[in-house]
């Protein structure tokens, strides 16, 4: 089933590369939620995440001809990771992120809507992880990438990537366990 999905992705990408405009809409439908989730968990801001998602698909249109096969997810999340780094470099956006984080901390004691309580709690605990660890965990989860692919993207030994993901997820489990979730 998984390999069939992978073949489907390859065909879809080939259709985009062949200039079939409608195929891009399908690509957006296929990856928008995952990429948005990745950006949202990193930035903790819906507006910024939407902006980054939009920039990501523009980059895909511009660069898809340079994709020469292999794992499309690896290629896609490499671009997504680079976009997030570019975003971090932007002073204005950094300021916006800090304001959001400050607001989150202030609002931590306020009652929350029941349907978002657990998700928000997870978001608070995710923000306690260091940026680098958080990014590799989210790339693993939303990008559905192997440790080998993650290590290649990050240009580091696979043991380092493995250790970072393990420590990060262990800490997250502990935090969630302590909170009684």
């Amino acid at each position: 089933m998984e390999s069939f999905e992978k073949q489907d992705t390859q065909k879809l990408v080939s259709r985009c590369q062949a200039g079939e405009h409608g195929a891009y809409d399908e690509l957006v439908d296929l990856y928008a939620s995952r990429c948005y989730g990745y950006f949202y968990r990193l930035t903790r801001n819906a507006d910024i995440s939407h902006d980054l998602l939009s920039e990501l698909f523009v980059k895909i249109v511009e660069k898809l001809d340079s994709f020469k096969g292999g794992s499309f997810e690896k290629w896609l999340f490499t671009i997504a990771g680079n976009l997030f780094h570019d975003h971090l470099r932007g002073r204005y956006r950094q300021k916006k992120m800090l304001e959001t984080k400050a607001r989150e901390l202030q609002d931590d004691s306020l009652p929350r809507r029941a349907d978002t309580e657990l998700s928000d709690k997870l978001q608070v605990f995710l923000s306690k992880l260091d940026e680098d660890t958080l990014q590799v965990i989210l790339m693993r989860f939303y990008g559905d990438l192997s440790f080998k692919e993650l290590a290649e993207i990050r240009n580091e030994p696979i043991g380092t990537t493995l250790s970072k993901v393990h420590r990060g997820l262990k800490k997250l489990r502990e935090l969630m366990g302590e909170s009684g979730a």
Partner: protein
Amino acid sequence: MPENPEQLKALLDSFLDPESAGKAAEDIDRGLDLLRTHPAPAPHPERIASIKRDLQNRLAAQTRSSRRIPAWIGWTGCAAALVLATTLLTLTYGPQFHPTQQVTEAVDPAQWKIDTDPVLSGMTKELEGELETILTIHPDQYNSDAPDPIEKLQQELKLMASTDDFWKG
């Protein structure tokens, strides 16, 4: 594509002892389960529609610009062909350039007459007088009928060679 549980355990075994590897695999699995069970919010449908519209506009613009390139090349080719044809026709059938005729026509022949200018006619007469004086003093030098100096020298040398007492004077 992420590793299946067996592949992940094997990978961890290569870095950790079996017990630690088992615990690490569980931490990773359960940790990712937390993300699965607490999903991030979905993107706003309007924003997704906006992204799709933007992409379609960009793709349409790309297509238009890629079609415009051959047209641009075509127009440039036509312009170059027109310039070339005009040049060839001009060179083949156009008016020929006659510099002498043009200069002659451009300057009034009356201006070339020295007699009309008293200064020029005076200088001409003076030069002619000087030339006459020189010809009187050195008639051979300016006389075209006089023997060539080299010929004259050759004759003298022949004479020296044939006559033994020439050097005695």
